[in-house]
C-alpha cells in the first residue's frame, strides 16, 4: 500500500514536472499577412498567429471546434434565445498593463456593429446585425439582447472578427502591433521575415504559457520549409506541408507529421448563373465525371477527406454525403448528351486556377485531366496570380469554373448569398439557411442545416472535391501540439519543448 502511494506521488510529481518551462520555437507559415488585427483585415494567416495566442474574445473555438470560455468565464442564454449574459473573467490585463473591463467589450461591439465601415474600420458589420443592444449592468457582466434568435451567435462571437483589444488603442497601431490579453504578447514584426511573440508574464491562467518565445517565420516555398526543418532552423511547418514532403518526414523519427480534417473545403465552383452551368444536368455531369478518390490519392497522396457538400467532417451538423453523385462516367456522358454535349460537339470552357495555392493547383489540374478524359468535355486551364483571380473570379464572377480552398469554419452560409462568386441563387436554400439560423433549438437547427447540405449536393452547386487536410510536421521534442484543427489558431499556449 505504502509502495503504491509512493508510486502515485511520484507519478503526480512527474506529471507536474513534465512540462518544462522556457525555450523558443520557430514555426513556418506560408504567407505574410498585410496586418495583424483580424477586426480590420481578413486572412486566415492572421488568425493562425494571433487568435487566442495574442488576442482573445469572449469565447473561443478550441482545437476540437467546441466553443469554450475565453474572456467570459461563463454565459447564460435565455430560453427565448434572445438574451446572452456573459460573466467576465476578473483581474485580466492587456499586454500594455491596462485592465480588461466591460467598457472594452461595449466599445468593441459598438465599433463592430457600426454600419459605417469607413468610420469604424471594422470588417463585416453584417455579422452583428441581430444585436439589438449591449449593456453592462455591473463591471463583471455584459448582456447582449438580440432582435431575433441566431443559432450562430456564439459562433460569431468566436470568430476572429470578434477578438477584443484595448478600447483606447489607435487602430493604426493595433494593425501593426496588436495588443490583447493572450498568453503571448506581440513583440515584433520583421517585415518579410517573421513575427516574434514573447511570453506574457501576467497571463491569467496560472503556469501558462510554457514557452518564452514563439517565432512565426514566413516561408512560402515548400522545399525551403523542408530544408529548414531538417537543418534545425525551423521547429515546425504549421500547415500546407506538401504531401510528398509529409511522406518523407513521416519516415524520420525526429519529426512528427500530423494530418487531420480541418474546416477547409477545396471547392471546384461553378458560375451557377452562366450557361451551361445554370443547367443542373451539366453540373451533375461534371460532379459524376470527377473521381474524388483518385484526386485524394493521386494529387494529395491520400491526405484529404472525401466530402459531398459544403461542410467538413468534424464541424457541427455535418452530414456525410461523400458518396452522393459518386464517380460514374457513363451517367456523366448521358447527362451531357441530354444537355446537348457529345464527343462531336463537346462542351468547351476555361478552368481558372490561382498560382499561389499548391494544394488547389494540383487538385484542379488533376480534375481537369479527369474531365478531359470523359470525351464530351474540353477544358482548358488558365493560371493567374491570386490578385487577378480575386478580381476576375471572386469579385466580378467572370469565369466558368475554378477551385479554391474555403478555410473558414461554418461557411455553408456562403451559398445563401446569391451575390457570392458562385452566383447560386436558390430560394429554397436561402429559406433552409434562415430556418437553421432562427431554429429554437440545436436539434431543429441541425435538421435544417442537414437539409441545406443535401439540397446543395442534389443541385450539384459545386464539386466539393475534398476537405483539405491540416497537414504539417514538427520536431518530435515539441509537446502538446494541438490534435484537432477546427480552430482558426495554431495554439501555442500549452506547447512546451522537451529539453
Amino acid at each position: 500500500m505504502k509502495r503504491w502511494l509512493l508510486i502515485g506521488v511520484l507519478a503526480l510529481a512527474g506529471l507536474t514536472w513534465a512540462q518544462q518551462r522556457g525555450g523558443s520555437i520557430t514555426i513556418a507559415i506560408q504567407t505574410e499577412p498585410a496586418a495583424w488585427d483580424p477586426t480590420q483585415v481578413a486572412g486566415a494567416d492572421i488568425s493562425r498567429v494571433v487568435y487566442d495566442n495574442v488576442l482573445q474574445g469572449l469565447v473561443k473555438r478550441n482545437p476540437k471546434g467546441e466553443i469554450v470560455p475565453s474572456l467570459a468565464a461563463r454565459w447564460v442564454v435565455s430560453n427565448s434565445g434572445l438574451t446572452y449574459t456573459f460573466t467576465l473573467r476578473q483581474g485580466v490585463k492587456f499586454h500594455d498593463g491596462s485592465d480588461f473591463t466591460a467598457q472594452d467589450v461595449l466599445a468593441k461591439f459598438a465599433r463592430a456593429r457600426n454600419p459605417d465601415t469607413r468610420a469604424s474600420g471594422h470588417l463585416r458589420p453584417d455579422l452583428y446585425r441581430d444585436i439589438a443592444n449591449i449593456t453592462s449592468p455591473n463591471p463583471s457582466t455584459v448582456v447582449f439582447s438580440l432582435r431575433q434568435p441566431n443559432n450562430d451567435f456564439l459562433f460569431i462571437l468566436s470568430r476572429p472578427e470578434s477578438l477584443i483589444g484595448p478600447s483606447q488603442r489607435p487602430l493604426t497601431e493595433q494593425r501593426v502591433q496588436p495588443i490583447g490579453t493572450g498568453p503571448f504578447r506581440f513583440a515584433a514584426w520583421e517585415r518579410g521575415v517573421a513575427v516574434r511573440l514573447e511570453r506574457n508574464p501576467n497571463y491569467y491562467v496560472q503556469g501558462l504559457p510554457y514557452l518564452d518565445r514563439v517565432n512565426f517565420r514566413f516561408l512560402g516555398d515548400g522545399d525551403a520549409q523542408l530544408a529548414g526543418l531538417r537543418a534545425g532552423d525551423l521547429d515546425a511547418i504549421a500547415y500546407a506541408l506538401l504531401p510528398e514532403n509529409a511522406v518523407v518526414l513521416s519516415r524520420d523519427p525526429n519529426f512528427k507529421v500530423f494530418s487531420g480534417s480541418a474546416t477547409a473545403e477545396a471547392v471546384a465552383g461553378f458560375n451557377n448563373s452562366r450557361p451551361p452551368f445554370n443547367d443542373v444536368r451539366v453540373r451533375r455531369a461534371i460532379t459524376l465525371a470527377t473521381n474524388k478518390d483518385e484526386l485524394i490519392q493521386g494529387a494529395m497522396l491520400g491526405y484529404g477527406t472525401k466530402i459531398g457538400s459544403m461542410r467538413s467532417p468534424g464541424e457541427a451538423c455535418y452530414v456525410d454525403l461523400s458518396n452522393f453523385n459518386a464517380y460514374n462516367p457513363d451517367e456523366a456522358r448521358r447527362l451531357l448528351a441530354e444537355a446537348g454535349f457529345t464527343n462531336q460537339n463537346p462542351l468547351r470552357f476555361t478552368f481558372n486556377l490561382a498560382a499561389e495555392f499548391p494544394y488547389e493547383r494540383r487538385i484542379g489540374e488533376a480534375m481537369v485531366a479527369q474531365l478531359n478524359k470523359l470525351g464530351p468535355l474540353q477544358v482548358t486551364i488558365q493560371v493567374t496570380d491570386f490578385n487577378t483571380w480575386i478580381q476576375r473570379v471572386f469579385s466580378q464572377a467572370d469565369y466558368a469554373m475554378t477551385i479554391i480552398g474555403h478555410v473558414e469554419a461554418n461557411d455553408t452560409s456562403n451559398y445563401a448569398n446569391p451575390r457570392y462568386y458562385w452566383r447560386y441563387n436558390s430560394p429554397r436554400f436561402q429559406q433552409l439557411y434562415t430556418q437553421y439560423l432562427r431554429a429554437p433549438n440545436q436539434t431543429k437547427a441541425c435538421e435544417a442545416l442537414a437539409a441545406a447540405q443535401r439540397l446543395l449536393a442534389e443541385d450539384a452547386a459545386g464539386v466539393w472535391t475534398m476537405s483539405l487536410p491540416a497537414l504539417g510536421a514538427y520536431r518530435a521534442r515539441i509537446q502538446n501540439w494541438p490534435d484537432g484543427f477546427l480552430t482558426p489558431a495554431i495554439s501555442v499556449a500549452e506547447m512546451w519543448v522537451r529539453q
Partner: protein
Amino acid sequence: MFAYTVRRLGFAMVTLWLATLLVFGALLLIPGNPAQAILGIDATPADLEALEARLGLDKPPVERYLNWLGGVLRGDLGQSIRYETSISQLILARLGITLPIVVASLLLATLIAVPLGILAARKAGSPIDLGVSMASLVGIVLPSFWVGLMFIYIFIVWLKLPLPTSFPIGGWENPERALAALVLPVLTVGLASASFLVRLVRGSVLEVLSQDYVRTARSKGLSERTVVYKHALRNASLPVVTVLGLEFAQLLIATVVVETVFGIPGLGSLSLLAISARDYPLVQGVVLVIAAFIVLMNLLVDLLYALLDPRVSYA
C-alpha cells in the same frame, strides 16, 4: 569629363522619370488592386470599399501619381500599402542584404572566370579549354533554384556544415549567423555568373590575341606572360567590364529565385511581393532604385572605359 558626367546625370533623371511613368501605367492595366489583395476572399464588398478609401485608392490615378511624384521630389518614397511602413526604410533594409550578395557573387564570379577564361583562351582547342567550356555550359543550363536546393542538401543536410537554411530572424542583429546565411546564396549566384562570364572572357581574350599588336609583341620576343597580362588583358577587359556592370544591376532583382530557396528577404522578393500585392508605391520605389542603379552602373562603366582605353575620351 565633368561636363559629360553632368549631362549623363541629366539624361538619367529623365530616364528615371520615364521608368516610373511606365511602371505606373502598367500597374493600372493589370487586374486586381491592393485592397483586394489584403482582404482576400473573406471580406464583403463594403469592407473592400472602406479599405480602398483608407488607402486613398478612391482618388483618380493621375492625382495618386502626382502625389507620389511630389513626395519623391521631396526625397520621400512614401508609405507601403502592404506593410504600412516607410518605403525608403524597407528598401534600405533589403539592399543591406541584397547588395552584399550581389557584390560578393560578382567578386567570386570574376575570381573564377577571369583566370579560367584566360587559361581556356591560351589553350584554345585543348582538353582544358573543352573542360572549361563544358563546365560553364553546365553552370548556365542548371537552374539556380535547383542548384541552391542541392547546395542545401549537400552542405547542410549531408555535410552538416553549421550554415542556416534561411536568413536568421533578427537579421544583422546576429551578424555571424546572417553572414553565414549568405554563403550558399553567394556560391549559387556566383557560380552561375561565373559560368556565363568565363565564356565572355575566353572569347574576348581569344579575339585580342589574334590582333596585330599582339603578334608584334610576340615577335619582339616578349614572354607569353607579358603578352597576355600586360598587352592583351587590358583590351580584353573592356567587354567584360561592360557585362559586369549590367550584371550587377540585373542581379539586384534576379536573385529573387535564390532568395526564395534560401528564405532571404532581399530586394527581389520585395519587388515580387510588391507586384503580387499590387502595392503601387512600393513597386515604383523599387523600380526607381533599380533604375537608378542601372543608370549609375552604365555611367561608371563608361567612365571606366576612359581609364582602360586611352583612345576613349569624353572631353
